[in-house]
């Protein structure tokens, strides 16, 4: 054990931001259920203490869908145990988190195939078949 490890640093911290965030999600989900628009919350804009990130994930839990997008690095799109609440984590090619959102929506925009890509794909397929 190195001398640094010998220093026990405990993190008994709470910014008090987790609760309000969860309530914000609750309100957003209620609105979505009532047929209103979805909401996106940027988690990097919130000061969170070490461990609070994990706490949010813990509370939200894991749902049925878990998808990975591979574009400019991996992006994990994960439905939480509350349908309609999604956790979107963008990483770069170095696996470093570059952005993290809670999306309250039917399906995160990014999961849908994009019109430009579809067009591009269609032409590529056409070319493929021509040859």
């Amino acid at each position, binding site marked *: 054990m190195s001398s640094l490890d010998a220093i026990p640093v405990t993190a008994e911290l709470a910014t008090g931001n987790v609760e309000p965030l969860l309530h914000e999600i609750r309100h957003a989900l209620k609105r979505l259920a009532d047929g209103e628009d979805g909401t996106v919350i940027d988690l990097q804009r919130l000061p969170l203490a070490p461990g609070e990130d994990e706490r949010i994930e813990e509370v939200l839990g894991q749902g049925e869908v878990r998808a990975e997008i591979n574009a400019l690095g991996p992006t994990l799109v994960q439905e939480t145990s509350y349908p309609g609440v999604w956790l979107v984590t963008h990483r770069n090619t170095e696996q*470093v988190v*570059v952005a993290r959102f809670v999306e309250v929506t039917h399906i995160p925009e990014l999961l849908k195939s994009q019109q*430009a890509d579809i067009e591009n794909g269609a032409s590529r397929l056409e070319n493929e078949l021509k040859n």
Partner: protein
Amino acid sequence: MRKDQFLGEYLRMQGVSRRGFLKFCSATASMMALPPSAVAQVAEALATARRPSVIWLSFQECTGCTESLTRSHAPTVESLIFDAISLDYHHTLQAAAGHGAEEARMAAMEENAGKYLLVVDGSIPLKNPAFSTIAGISNLEMLKETAANAFAIIAVGTCAAFGGIPHADPNPTGAVAVSDIITDKPIINVSGCPPIPVVITGVLAHFLTFGTIPELDALGRPVAYFGQNIHDRCYRRPFYERGQFAETFDDEGARKGWCLYKLGCKGPTTYNACATLKWNAGTSFPIQSGHGCIGCSEPDFWDKGGFYNPISAGMWGSRDALVGAAAAGAALGVGSALAARARKKKAMSQEEA
């Protein structure tokens, strides 16, 4: 990327899908501290953005700012931002050297007159132009010359923004900030020693996206990043409220991660985004790793009474001066009383006469 090419077009040619582009825009919006709802707007703007020319001048500096930037998370989304600009001059990063480098700068200035961005790191010595020169040109001369036709200037790092460490007492070189010399151009101060890399790229992204300069605070810093002080966004703030402070760096409070106010943390008077954006790819920031904020994004942070002196400690002068004041007070008190007693004596003798 050609300079007349749109960014969206360029990215598509690089094999980046629309989905990838949207991800890039999300991250960029987040980086620019814009609300997630602005992603569509950012995407639209970025798709049709043109590649700006950037000239980066380094004066009295330690290259820490450049290091901070280049070692951040390359190759990353930010690196795309750099791909998206034309860095025409940066004497640490460019391949060209000597006359060739200077010629590149002159060429870029001429070609993009009135449109290029000037990025400066380091302060400018005024005492003697020979203290810092590049290719025999003094920093002052080069700054004036290059700023003349710039669209805007980004002063990167506290040295360029406020004079920084070279400016610290007794300031042997007579170092000043960019804003002390250039007064007729918009200057964006991205202070910090070094600044958070995301903030540098965020400002570039803003310029790229909107072609304008972001909203600035009284010290010329982008409000999006410097609008709130560290203390207000610090995860250790609850300890401050509860009055739980680390008294030394190795006591129980320090181990428990209590507030570092007493150990000289300058969080309450320091405006920066460290507490939210954090450093080293979002790993941590000074307070989280157990050291108080030193206030590096503030003017004259080096001369504010010591990194380990609490903010509320006053510079009250020497004990001797106070003792001197007390002695002077006593002398004046005795003097005034003696004068009053002399008058009293006179009054008494008058009455007897």
